């Protein structure tokens, strides 16, 4: 068996060498497979490398990775190991010393695996996929890979529009992967048993699994530089690929004994995922649509798993995970149960995405380790008009009511999240952001006076990010704001926020501009991404390493412009690069929602009234709960 050796000198020369050594508690070593490998250099089981295209500390904080690591290792016929993107310093050392990318568990070179699976959580990690393939000596393009090369696949939210990366992946898995990844691995096992002959036939067979998209079975058609849809290269390839969902979350494998990193990571805590999907349908939010329909796990299952996880991991914090915790119907039972079980054990709960009300404030008192941590609101837009456009079901009155409670309860730190560049936004809406912050400041002092509380210096933070139109949302056709528009809005808001109690945080515009190209891009970007990588672009998700100029220049070299991707699509007669993917929600629904947005009409949450978005086709969850 091949093992990659890294010298002590090389490890000592990089920041945080603990990232590269493995040996963590909970990492899976299949002794019998290892023995086979040591004796014969090969094994009959499928060897899978689960790759995270970012640094170790981020990858290890990723729940999807822990879930799928478990699913694959629960299979008798598979051994899954983990691989992370080496940080820039290690990348340089590896190139200089001729070290190949290797797995954490056995230090095997990446190309010795049968499957190399990437999880794509954000577009800006794309170049790191290439970095990993490069350091792993695996051909970039699916067309250049031989029967013996690993099968390279991906999944995660970015897989829904994988076109900009389509040439690099043999397979893209749509939707929730727990079952699908096992089915794909079973087919790969047969392929391996048969001596790895005819990779094309394998991929065609995989394409017949629901949710598996094999990009090489299709080719894009362009006319006058505009995308015209995909042409099937095999009559057997499916016309559309429908995402997979897990119907019964209570009975799907959950990593209650995850790998525990030896070094501190970004989110150093255990996770409990309480439900999938979101009942709200905010029109800018991709997660709100692609994870439909809402499916909950029962509080009983969750309590049991939460207690198990706390015991198995030794973590002193359990993070409750979902898109919107307050919408979980069993929240009280769950938190009561867990708080009870953790009594005296120095374990805290963390509950992000809580809607602030009496119950939430009470809960936050009970769960938080550091008292009176900040309150978080995401009104997303500054005026009610624009909030109606984006269907953000939160009104100023709600916010003020919650804050009144919170301020009376002694809170004084508030964080507000907004987006700039939402469709129909005017400068009036931008000003609304500052107005809201001022109203909150005033409210704080009013409440203190009324309640006889000694007023402190309130900390009100306003944070804006740039809105990027995403596939599978009602705004998928919209035009993106230009750099100048964004900068103008940021500057305007900066000029409005003068109080020393209000802090304004804005983000780098350029990163968002490139992200927007990737988000709605098509296959013409594959060459661009590869060329950008070869010019030294990677770790684009890290502001310090992001090279905006290089990307714009590379686009131009390929005869493309930023505007082309930013200008969006004509709703009625243009093809979308992701139209062959079916997330359950119909295109007609997205169109209707878009029209309603322009009429400033809201759509009620799933639980209030089903809007017949199409996700009822999965025949589970919220769509069926009331019926």
């Amino acid at each position: 068996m091949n093992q990659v050796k890294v010298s002590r000198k090389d490890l000592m020369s990089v920041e945080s060498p603990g990232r590269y050594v493995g040996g963590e508690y909970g990492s899976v070593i299949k002794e019998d497979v290892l023995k086979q490998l040591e004796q014969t250099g090969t094994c009959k089981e499928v060897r899978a490398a689960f790759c995270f295209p970012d640094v170790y500390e981020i990858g290890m904080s990723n729940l999807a990775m822990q879930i799928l690591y478990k699913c694959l290792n629960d299979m008798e016929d598979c051994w899954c190991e983990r691989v992370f993107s080496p940080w820039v310093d290690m990348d340089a050392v590896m190139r200089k010393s001729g070290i190949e990318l290797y797995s954490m568990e056995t230090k095997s070179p990446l190309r010795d695996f049968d499957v190399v699976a990437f999880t794509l959580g954000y577009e800006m990690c794309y170049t790191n996929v290439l970095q990993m393939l490069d350091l792993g000596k695996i051909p970039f393009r699916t067309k250049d890979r031989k029967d013996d090369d690993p099968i390279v696949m991906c999944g995660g939210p970015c897989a829904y529009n994988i076109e900009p990366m389509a040439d690099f992946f043999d397979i893209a898995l749509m939707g929730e992967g727990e079952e699908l990844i096992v089915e794909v691995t079973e087919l790969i096992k047969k392929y391996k048993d048969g001596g790895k002959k005819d990779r094309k036939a394998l991929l065609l067979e995989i394409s017949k699994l629901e949710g598996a998209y094999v990009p090489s079975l299709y080719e894009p058609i362009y006319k006058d530089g505009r995308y015209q849809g995909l042409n099937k290269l095999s009559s057997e390839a499916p016309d559309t690929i429908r995402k997979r969902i897990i119907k019964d979350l209570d009975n799907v494998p959950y990593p209650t004994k995850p790998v525990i990193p030896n070094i501190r990571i970004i989110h150093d805590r255990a996770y409990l995922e309480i439900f999938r999907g979101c009942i709200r349908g905010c029109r800018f939010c991709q997660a709100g649509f692609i994870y439909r329909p809402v499916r909950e796990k029962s509080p009983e299952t969750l309590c049991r798993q939460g207690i198990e996880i706390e015991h198995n991991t030794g973590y002193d914090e359990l993070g409750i995970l979902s898109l919107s915790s307050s919408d979980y119907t069993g929240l009280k039972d769950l938190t009561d149960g867990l708080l009870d079980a953790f009594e005296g054990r120095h374990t805290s709960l963390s509950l992000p995405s809580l809607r602030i009300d009496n119950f939430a404030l009470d809960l936050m008192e009970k769960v938080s380790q550091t008292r009176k941590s900040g309150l978080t609101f995401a009104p997303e837009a500054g005026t009610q008009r624009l909030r109606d456009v984006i269907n953000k079901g939160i009104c100023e009155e709600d916010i003020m009511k919650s804050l009144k409670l919170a301020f009376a309860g002694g809170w004084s730190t508030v964080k507000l999240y907004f987006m700039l560049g939402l469709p129909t936004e005017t400068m009036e809406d931008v000003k609304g952001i500052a107005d809201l912050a001022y109203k909150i400041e005033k409210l704080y002092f009013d409440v203190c006076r009324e309640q006889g509380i000694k007023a402190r210096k309130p900390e009100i933070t306003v944070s804006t990010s740039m809105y990027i139109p995403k596939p599978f949302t009602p705004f998928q056709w919209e035009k993106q704001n230009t750099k100048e528009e964004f900068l103008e809005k940021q500057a305007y808001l900066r000029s409005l926020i003068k109080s020393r109690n209000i802090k304004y945080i804005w983000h780098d515009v350029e990163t968002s501009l490139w992200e927007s190209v990737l988000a709605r891009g098509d296959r013409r970007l594959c060459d661009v991404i590869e060329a950008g990588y070869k010019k030294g672009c990677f770790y684009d998700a890290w502001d310090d390493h992001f090279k905006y100029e290089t990307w714009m220049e590379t686009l131009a070299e390929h005869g493309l412009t930023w505007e082309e991707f930013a200008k969006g699509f004509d709703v009625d007669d243009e093809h979308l690069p992701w139209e062959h993917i079916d997330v359950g929600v119909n295109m007609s629904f997205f169109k209707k929602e878009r029209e309603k947005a322009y009429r400033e009409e809201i759509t009620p949450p799933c639980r209030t009234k089903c809007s017949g978005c199409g996700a009822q086709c999965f025949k589970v969850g919220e769509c069926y709960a009331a019926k």
Partner: protein
Amino acid sequence: MLQNERSLEMTKQKHQTEYVVRCLFERVGDASFVGHLDLMHTFDRAIRRAEMPILYSQGYNPRPMMVFALPLGVGIDTLGDYVDVSLAHVVDAQEFMDKVNPNLPKGVRLYGGINIDEPKNSLMSVVSVAMYRFEAPGIKAPLMHLFERDTIEVQKKSKGKIVTTDIRPLLLSGAQNPSASEDVVEIYCCAGSSKNLRPDVLMNALCVHEGYDEDLAANASVTRLMLYGGEYPRLIDIKELL
């Protein structure tokens, strides 16, 4: 009641008596590339997984009560470090180790533990001497040659300025070499919170003063073999220094 107030209460109640398990531990191989703070977290979690009744400090941000004898640099193996763990009730040291060891990551292991009452002197304060082993091609002769010098000046950066210090007084003696190999050398040197010689500083001096190859030095395997108390050459087992 707030959770942290609640735990504070509990800590106070339990804190009236404190039972300490003092263990030796080793950290070898890949685990050596985990930094000292991270290692403390690793121990904390392993002890929690083992359901051992570790005590927490009082105050706003309760911390598990664990004391390490001497921080260990990244990339250095150890076979003889110490940790004191405070428990809310007596757990036999052997049982403690049997429960915690399966919960530790690869390369980290507790051994030779004893039960003690609350130590009068902190573990950190009793350490005075460390024994190290260095393994690298031909390292023995040049390293032993350092002992023949009257002074060994090294430069280090301190607050932006470069200061020169003499590390010769920190070197105590060479130890009986277990193998006749020219590639292995074992030494005693000062260790602890007041006078401490860091192995990487010594390696650096070896290159500067003896012309030892920097690459070989960087790849040398360094192992802390044991920590001692007392005054050289009358060394005292740390388990006896309570």
